[in-house]
């Protein structure tokens, strides 16, 4: 505001932009370091590797059984996306359209798993799952990952549903639709963009969800990020480059879905959609 900026205002602006650029450059460099290393022949004492090769990728593929891991990852993520949609969307509808006693308590109930970090409830959750003989296999991992995502879908979908004019639903009911057909013929089509955004966000978050899978997975039910963790942790034993090759595969998996999600969703919604609801 105001026609002329003073010197100190200009300096301040430059300092802030410098900070932002510094941050962005470092983030990009961090990611690039992994990628470059994965293609490098040997890289000890120089700015760039001695030569470039793709052999680490095939070696990582075999060493870490990436084929199986990727299949497991997508089965788990797919199940989580589907189930959180099936549980979450109807719940969101009920919360958006009905003001029943105890509604505030229910909303609080859905806020908690999203605000409390996975580690705090992850270990007790894992204990319970193991006791129910669900620990260490895919069902346990899926159930564990559903804990933060079902509330997420509920809280993301509520504003979408509130945007739909209730009179449209009233019209459908007047013309004979019960709740089931109301959903299928009216609500889901109208909510499709919202549901799509919510589920894409769930997908992206679950691929990167580390702690819950880490605590509940067995050797056959690890997602890619957990396999990566074990590999990085055992870096002395395995070659760093093949770890990086797996890391690049992981990056591509997440980033591809992120790019798809961003076509439908503003980047800020990955963060603030959920947290804005938490703020009320």
């Amino acid at each position: 505001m105001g026609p002329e900026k003073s010197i100190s205002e200009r300096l301040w602006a430059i300092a802030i932009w410098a900070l932002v650029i510094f941050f962005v450059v470092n983030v990009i460099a961090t990611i690039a370091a992994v990628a470059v290393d994965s293609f490098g022949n040997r890289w000890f004492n120089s700015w760039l590797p001695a030569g470039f090769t793709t052999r680490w990728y095939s070696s990582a593929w075999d060493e870490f059984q990436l084929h199986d891991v990727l299949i497991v990852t997508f089965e788990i993520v797919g199940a989580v996306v589907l189930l959180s949609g099936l549980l979450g969307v109807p719940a969101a509808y009920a919360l958006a359209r009905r003001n029943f006693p105890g509604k505030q308590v229910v909303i609080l109930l859905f806020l908690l798993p999203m605000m409390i970090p996975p580690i705090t409830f992850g270990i007790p959750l894992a204990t319970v799952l193991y006791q129910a003989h669900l620990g260490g296999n895919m069902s346990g991992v899926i159930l564990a990952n559903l804990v933060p995502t079902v509330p997420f879908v509920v809280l993301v979908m509520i504003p979408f549903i509130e945007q739909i004019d209730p009179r449209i639903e009233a019209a459908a009911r007047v013309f004979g639709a019960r709740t089931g057909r109301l959903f299928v013929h009216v609500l889901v089509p109208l909510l499709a963009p919202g549901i799509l955004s919510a589920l894409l966000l769930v997908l992206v978050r679950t691929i990167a969800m580390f702690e819950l899978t880490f605590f509940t997975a067995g050797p056959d039910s690890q997602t890619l990020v957990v396999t990566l963790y074990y590999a990085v942790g055992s870096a002395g034993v395995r070659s760093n480059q093949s770890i990086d090759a797996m890391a690049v595969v992981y990056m591509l998996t997440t980033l591809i879905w992120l790019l798809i999600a961003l076509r439908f969703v503003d980047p800020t919604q990955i963060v603030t959609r959920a947290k804005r609801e938490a703020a009320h």
Partner: protein
Amino acid sequence: MSDRAAEAPRERMPLRVRLALYDLDGVTLLVLPAIIFVIALFVYPFVYGFVLSFQPKKGDWLANYAKFFSDPFLYDTIAATFRLAIPSTLINVLLSIPVALRVRRMRNRRILTTILVIPITLGTVLIAQGLLIYLGPQGWFNRVMATIGIEHMRLVHNYTGVMLSLIISGFPFTFLLTLSYLTGIDPSLEQAAATLGAKARERFLHILLPLLAQGLAINLCLSFVQTFSVFPSAVLLGAPAGETRVISIAAYQAAYEQYNYSMASAVAMIMGFCQLFVVALILGARRFVYRGSAGGGKG
């Protein structure tokens, strides 16, 4: 005539209708599966863990907690975690304010926000691996520092590495949240303040900051809770047996190395309690701060 009224049978409203008056009908039942799920897989494990923490393998009901607070190897983890969580939270939230103030006028924010969302999407494990290479003794960062004369910066396998990882994965969160609160403040409020003689610094202190305060409190809470739960970075990028031995590591070891689930639950409860304590402090301080809408009137 009054006979008519006396003849009509007095009916009680059917239960369904009475419930519907409270908005309890078939549609409301749709929320039930999700509620049952959250209770079964969140509330119950929490309660179970809480109870389990008082049922140690040996000793009386407080044995786990007693052991925790008498063994420095265990209780030092609280301090180690706070030493990481508090500075990183403060840095992330406080830095987000000037950056958000600058960025909110940008017309094409999308590129910047997309870049910032990438570290969040990739997750802490990948960032840890990346930093191990990039900040390592042979990595690009140290090479650049060497060309300007700063040699041998130790940035990995220590406190610094974990701190940097917390900032990289935490700053985008706090920045986007602050930005969304900032853009929710009616711009005509600042314009009005300017016409009344308030310079930029005064506009920030008297108008923006008070209206932002409630959002900043939430930001601090969410951010702190996130950083306090640091785990993979502390192991991969830090010194998990030393200065970055955080409380989540203690919980993990109790569960997966000692198979002492009771102790693990106790540690998890202590961790949760610490987080709750700080959150309650921050939210309690909100009482002194304006907590209404950030609009300017019935415009």
